[in-house]
């Protein structure tokens, strides 16, 4: 569920987020979300909900009763698995932390806090509105309030030294619960950071330096018992984000709200959906029709195979090539796999499972490209039971 509004736009962010100085007609958006949710229920009848994720934007700007109404609708439309993971993304400001208890009452059982840094100067540079002190406090409230929580940090920031990151990550690990998301700063096209970067006014570690940052991060999180289960996500065993695992394991998900994407099976095909990005136009679409979708297309087998590969190899557990072959009739060529094994970039773990090694995960783009380019019709002898 995508809540597309933010109090301000961060200069590095290219997500579908919008600032509305004049305020937001929350009731209107709630109604539209509920209406679109109903449409999704019709498309995915018979499925069970295993997780809900409120992302954005800044969902913690939503009133708790809005969240409550939406979760209520979810449970009316679908059976919800016992112990389903219900996550809400939140900013660690004191105002928002003040709403945590009400979110909990609405049914949220996990929060993911956009802490980003534990240094005030860095937070200002990243355009964040909260302070490090507020973030620390919000983490404490989250720990007290929810069953599970996670927070995000951005590293390899402009001017950041490896030593500074070591200290900051050390503090983060001390504050953390069972889950952490650690992102290297990415310069995204069309953002203010990209403009600065293009003009040489913003220099971020790249190549060798970026590799060192990543290595240090893996070493420290491994030692702290929060190893990477995905490129940028760390968790104690069993504490992975179940919702996000669905994306990486290429399961089915409904994307509700402006600019949301979905994947679901219908008529033997996997369909890809996306909705209008602009919040008001999306709401208008939903109000005149029943949904805000501007795209709902069946994927070809080759597209499916590409998506499964590029998502699955992000996971430490890797991808089940047997399942992939059963679904798409495609498999990466053996000689390509063997070449990458020879370079110690991928490994076979189990009869049909392929995963990237730690070194390999750093160059996953190139690996996925090579494997995707090597796709051949899957051998009939291949084990397809996985």
């Amino acid at each position: 569920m995508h809540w597309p509004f933010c109090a301000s736009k961060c200069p590095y962010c290219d997500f579908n987020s919008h600032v509305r100085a004049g305020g937001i007609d929350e009731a209107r958006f709630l109604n539209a979300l509920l209406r679109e949710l109903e449409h999704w229920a019709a498309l995915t009848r018979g499925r069970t909900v295993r997780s809900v994720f409120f992302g954005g934007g800044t969902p913690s700007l939503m009133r708790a009763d809005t969240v409550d109404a939406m979760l209520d609708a979810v449970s009316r439309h679908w059976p919800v698995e016992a112990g389903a993971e219900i996550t809400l993304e939140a900013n660690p400001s004191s105002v928002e932390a003040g709403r945590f208890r009400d979110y909990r009452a609405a049914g949220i059982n996990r929060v993911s806090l956009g802490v980003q840094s534990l240094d005030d100067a860095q937070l200002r540079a990243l355009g964040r509105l909260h302070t490090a002190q507020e973030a620390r406090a919000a983490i404490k409230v989250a720990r007290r309030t929810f069953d599970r929580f996670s927070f995000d940090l951005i590293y390899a920031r402009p001017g950041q030294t490896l030593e500074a990151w070591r200290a900051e990550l050390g503090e983060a690990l001390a504050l953390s619960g069972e889950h952490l998301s650690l992102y290297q700063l990415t310069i995204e096209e069309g953002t203010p950071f990209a403009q600065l970067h293009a003009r040489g006014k913003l220099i971020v570690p790249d190549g060798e330096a970026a590799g060192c940052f990543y290595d240090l991060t893996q070493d420290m999180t491994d030692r702290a018992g929060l190893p990477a289960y995905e490129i940028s996500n760390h968790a104690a065993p069993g504490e992975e984000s179940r919702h996000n695992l669905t994306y990486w394991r290429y399961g089915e998900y409904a994307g509700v709200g402006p600019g949301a994407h979905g994947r679901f099976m219908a008529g033997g095909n996997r369909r890809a959906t996306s909705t209008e990005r602009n919040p008001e136009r999306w709401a208008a679409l939903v109000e005149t029709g029943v949904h805000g979708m501007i795209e709902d297309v069946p994927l070809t087998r080759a597209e499916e195979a590409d998506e499964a590969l590029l998502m699955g190899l992000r996971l430490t557990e890797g991808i089940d090539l047997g399942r992939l072959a059963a679904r798409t009739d495609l498999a990466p060529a053996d000689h390509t796999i063997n070449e990458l094994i020879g370079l110690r970039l991928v490994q076979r773990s189990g009869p049909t499972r392929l995963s990237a090694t730690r070194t390999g995960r750093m160059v996953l783009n190139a690996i996925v490209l090579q494997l995707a380019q090597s796709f051949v019709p899957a051998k009939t002898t291949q084990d397809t039971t996985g």
Partner: protein
Amino acid sequence: MTDINLIRNFSIIAHIDHGKSTLSDRLIQLCGNVSDREMKEQILDSMDIERERGITIKAQTVRLDYRHANGKTYQLNLMDTPGHVDFAYEVSRSLAACEGAVLVVDASQGVEAQTLANVYQAVDNNLEILPVLNKVDLPSADSDRVKQQIEDVIGIDASHAIPISAKTGQNVAAVLEAIVERLPPPKGNRNAPLKALLIDSWYDAYLGVVVLVRIFDGSLKKGQKIKLMSSGATHQIERVGIFRPKQEMLAELGPGEVGFFTAAIKQVADTRVGDTVTDDKNSTVTPLPGFKPAQPVVFCGLFPADAAQFEDLREAMARLRLNDASFSYETESSAALGFGFRCGFLGLLHLEIITERLEREFNLDLITTAPSVIYHIHLTDGSKVELHNPADMPDAGRIERIEEPWIEATILVPDEHLGGVLKLCQDRRGRQKNLTYVGTRAMLIYELPLNEVVFDFYDRLKSISRGYASFDYHIKGYEAGDLVKMSILVNAEPVDALSMIVHRTRAESRGRAMCEKLKELIPPHLFQIPIQAALGARIIARETIRALRKDVIAKCYGGDISRKRKLLDKQKAGKKKMRQFGKVDIPQEAFIAALKMDEN
């Protein structure tokens, strides 16, 4: 048929940008041949490339009717000739069709090397030269200095040079007057057997091959059976006409006249520039002098970037050759680049034009390999082979000696850039023959090996002189040289399309430059890639491309997946554009970069 005394045949000689096309346009306009509406800038340069580069590739003519103050109407045949050294032979044939030449010199720039070469040819052909100073309206114009320069360098009287501005039209009428008054009429005998010079020919989708001719003796009529003397082939004339510049059909062409004919000729290659056209039955005894078949001097490989386009490329080449017999091609196969063609060109500009036309007019994406010249290889068994492609170099043990073509180059350069140009010529194994001054500019005569010139010499010359140097050359002959084949190894495998023949003394610097350039152009792979230059088994230069360290995207969730898949598709397409060599993907630019390398 016009009275021969009322005909004037002339061409315009000028350096690029000195205003040849603009003056042509003005002359055509003044004689009322085209309406203002039809007046497109540079009427005669009809190909896109010609118009864009401001150069003429194919010779063209236009007939003008000019009413002189004396009351008589004259037939003026303006010959627009190619203006580049690559087409020197075509220029010489166009000049042979004229009695006079209008020499256009930019009044602020002065005489350039290329103008010199053409004007010397005109003088050699006994043409009357009519000097015209163009762009006199510019504040930087210095007519007196340029007149003096024309007299000093060309050795003709420039005191009556006509000052004009082709752009504004100022004084252009005086040029027409002078053409009638100062250029001689042609000579010819109407009753003698047909003798006509084949000036140029091209393929027209509607008319077939169109042949441009200048009649010396006799006449050319529809229905007449003619013979092309070099091949003995006969054809029946279908149409006879002239260009104004629009086509206009006529009953016949007589002595002194310039025009075209068509005769159901299939290929341009059957009509060779400089050939003599005569009557099949009543043939002339003596063909016109100076005919020689086109001889390619520069060779390179052309490969389709997408291997699936090989047949398209073959078809495109055949189509181009229909219109340009001076360009040759034969199938070539390369381990690195797959199937393609080894092509021969008259020079580097010709090479550029052909590749550009292939890409533009036929929508092909091409990989061009480093240009090479023809080497004469004398083998120890006494035989001699002509080497067009470095990949075909025989084993060193079998070679007795290698000879390479040398040129004599004329370079005009402002004094302040002379040092740089001298160094460039020296670096390229040049031998200085002469150094004189033409006003404030040095005129250098150098002998240079052609293989050093085809290798980005012109680009370097332009950059060293900030564009002020001009350059012209002609082939001088073959000389033995200490030449070796340099191989380039990528990931320990030789890449045939990158190998080249170099002088031993230049091998190391060329090899180093090549390795450095490739290091820049080949993207990092998942493994480290050594790049080496080698003479035989001996490595003379080496660079290493380090393995890719990190390229993974930090964030990728459900909402990113479509975008990431599209990115993956783009990357796949990008990779397809590269040439896989062993395990290494080499981008197309790497092959082209071998042509343009800065060794300094």
